[in-house]
């Protein structure tokens, strides 16, 4: 892995030590108090993630894909969104979901297997998680085409304009669907921000297998801008995403953002990363932790103090307790419920299958 340096090809506004970096092209105008809420979001996201990982270890979840290490990329990009923007996540965007107001307990239903992706707290502007790599990028382009047709792009009153931001991984960039999404978005000048979290791996496969050159350059081949940003730097992510969103909302078409980051945990709780990567690599990335650097900066800037930190720790702990206790109490579904969910207009055949299923189950003296 060639380490990118701050420079024109790598937007960084806060270095690993928590020092601000000045640039002429991008800058983060968010006041420190807003960055402090980013830190809170990042800490809480990490707590959600570690609690869910623990719940999986205890057998309460079937699976969990950790977001550990990717908090800056997620919070930084999510916090610059506003109505009528639309968010299309993949499956690891727990931080984005958090910013969109989704109850993390809802996320757990999917991974506990008590539901599909039907989360009551999900707002209309947040699309459900997607598990087929890359497929959601085309949906995002379609949604952006809808915004165009709704008259929500390129208006003089900039506040009324919207864009779609779609999340996917480095591995996803190899899928035909994703490249078609790039192409359709370019062809229609659709307002899409392609937000790729390059966390260096697709399960065991290193990024070099998917691309021999920096990923952000893919966009140029389709005729729209690509930018690589330090994905562990929430300031830079904010600045770059805001720029891309504004451009898209204005009607100038798509942008590809490559948020250069690292998956500090396993691919999912089923994965054993020691099979394919070295501890030294993880250590090197620990030194670039997105939370540590923001905390260092905010402490030095006097924007947060011990009391603030203590309150946040308590909040995180309470959240963890809520998840821990809530998870085991998630309502158990019945198969019967699902027969009327596949269609708006359920065919007779399925109703008959449901009835047969129910009659069959009822024939057992006690529930099996």
């Amino acid at each position: 892995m060639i380490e990118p340096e701050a420079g024109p090809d790598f937007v960084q506004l806060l270095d690993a030590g928590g020092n601000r970096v000045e640039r002429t092209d991008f800058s983060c105008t968010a006041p420190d108090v807003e960055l402090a809420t980013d830190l809170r979001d990042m800490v809480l996201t990490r707590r959600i993630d570690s609690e869910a990982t623990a719940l999986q270890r205890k057998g309460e979840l079937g699976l969990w894909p950790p977001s550990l290490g990717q908090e800056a990329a997620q919070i930084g990009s999510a916090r610059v969104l506003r109505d009528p923007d639309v968010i299309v996540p993949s499956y690891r965007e727990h931080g984005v979901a958090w910013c969109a107001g989704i109850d993390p307990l809802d996320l757990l239903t999917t991974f506990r297997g008590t539901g599909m992706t039907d989360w009551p707290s999900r707002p209309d502007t947040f699309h459900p998680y997607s598990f087929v790599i890359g497929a959601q990028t085309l949906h995002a382009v379609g949604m952006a085409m809808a915004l165009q047709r709704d008259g929500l792009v390129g208006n003089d009153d900039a506040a009324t304009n919207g864009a779609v931001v779609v999340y996917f991984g480095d591995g996803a960039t190899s899928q035909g669907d994703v490249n078609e999404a790039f192409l359709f978005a370019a062809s229609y000048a659709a307002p899409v921000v392609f937000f790729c979290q390059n966390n260096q791996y697709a399960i065991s496969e290193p990024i070099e297998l998917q691309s021999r050159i920096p990923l952000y350059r893919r966009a140029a081949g389709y005729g729209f801008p690509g930018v690589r940003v330090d994905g562990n730097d929430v300031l830079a992510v904010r600045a770059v995403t805001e720029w891309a969103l504004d451009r898209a909302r204005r009607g100038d078409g798509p942008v590809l953002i490559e948020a250069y980051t690292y998956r500090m945990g396993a691919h999912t709780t089923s994965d054993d990363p020691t099979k394919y990567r070295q501890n030294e690599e993880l250590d090197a990335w620990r030194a670039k932790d997105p939370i540590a650097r923001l905390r260092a900066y905010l402490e030095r800037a006097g924007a947060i103090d011990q009391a603030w930190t203590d309150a946040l720790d308590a909040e995180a702990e309470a959240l963890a307790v809520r998840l821990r206790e809530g998870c085991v109490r998630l309502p158990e579904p019945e198969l019967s419920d699902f027969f009327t969910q596949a269609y708006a207009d359920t065919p007779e055949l399925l109703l008959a299958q449901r009835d047969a299923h129910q009659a069959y189950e009822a024939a057992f003296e006690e529930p099996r």
Partner: protein
Amino acid sequence: MTTMTMAKALNAGLRRAMGAEPKVLLAGEDIGKLGGVFRVTEGLQAEFGPDRVIDSPLAEAGIVGTAVGLALRGYRPVVEIQFDGFVYPAFDQLVSQASRLRFRTAGKLGVPLVVRIPYGGGIGAIEHHSESPETYFAHTPGLKVVTPASPSDAYWMIQQAIAADDPVVFLEPKRRYHDKGEVDLDQQSAELSLFSARVVKPGTEATLLCYGPMVRTCLEAAMVAEQEGRSLEVVDLRSLSPVDDAVVLASVRRTGRAVVVHEAARTLGLGAELAARIQEQCFYELDAPVLRVTGYDLPYPPSRVEDGYLPDLDRVLDAVDRSLRW
């Protein structure tokens, strides 16, 4: 009543749906300026503009995938796949995406998408232009699959498919595009539900179960049989998923015999499912096994031999004879 071809009837149905509902959009390869390679969308871009009749880049997954996105945001996209053999690149978007978003969200989201596919053989085409992919979609939960056999059904069914809130694969029997029939353009709404089968010719001795391009073939066979003194009932399924079991089973119960006719390969073609259901439901009422007259279990062959591959009047009557002799 107006006499028109199926292609024109589809065009008229699309025009009416677009006129009635501004959220209806069309997308596909060459559907705009050219009006589609079969001219089904002719004139629609001129009438409704390029934002509603969209020429798409040459990529079927992209066409279906972006249509899913449009549908999720309140539009009612109708996409055209240029030929049956070119739907496979869009397979994931159809069977794993469009079909499931409602289920995934417990009904919160829907994908009111119509995928129009000219399908079937008999037009002397090169490979990939004569296929019958209905099994792939009828086996997929979450999709619905329909196919008209006449201009009038084409006109109404396309409008009903667009009005449906579930994703519908709309199979157009391309060899019948130029067949003419009566269409009542003044009628307010369709007489039959989109998912109903229709007895297109009543009869007593055996039931021919067919759809799309084979309805005409079966009707012709039934006429010939009639002249020879045998009375065949012809049922046009119209909907392949769901199948209108009530009409199918009632007919077979009446006649005691069923022959299923389709162009698709035999193994796991619709005939398999119909046979399975009929023998399950009418075990004691059947006087003969359900027989199948179908394409062979081969890739579609070159056009000079397609007549042998496709079920025709003689093969249908031959199967009827076998059934009656049982």
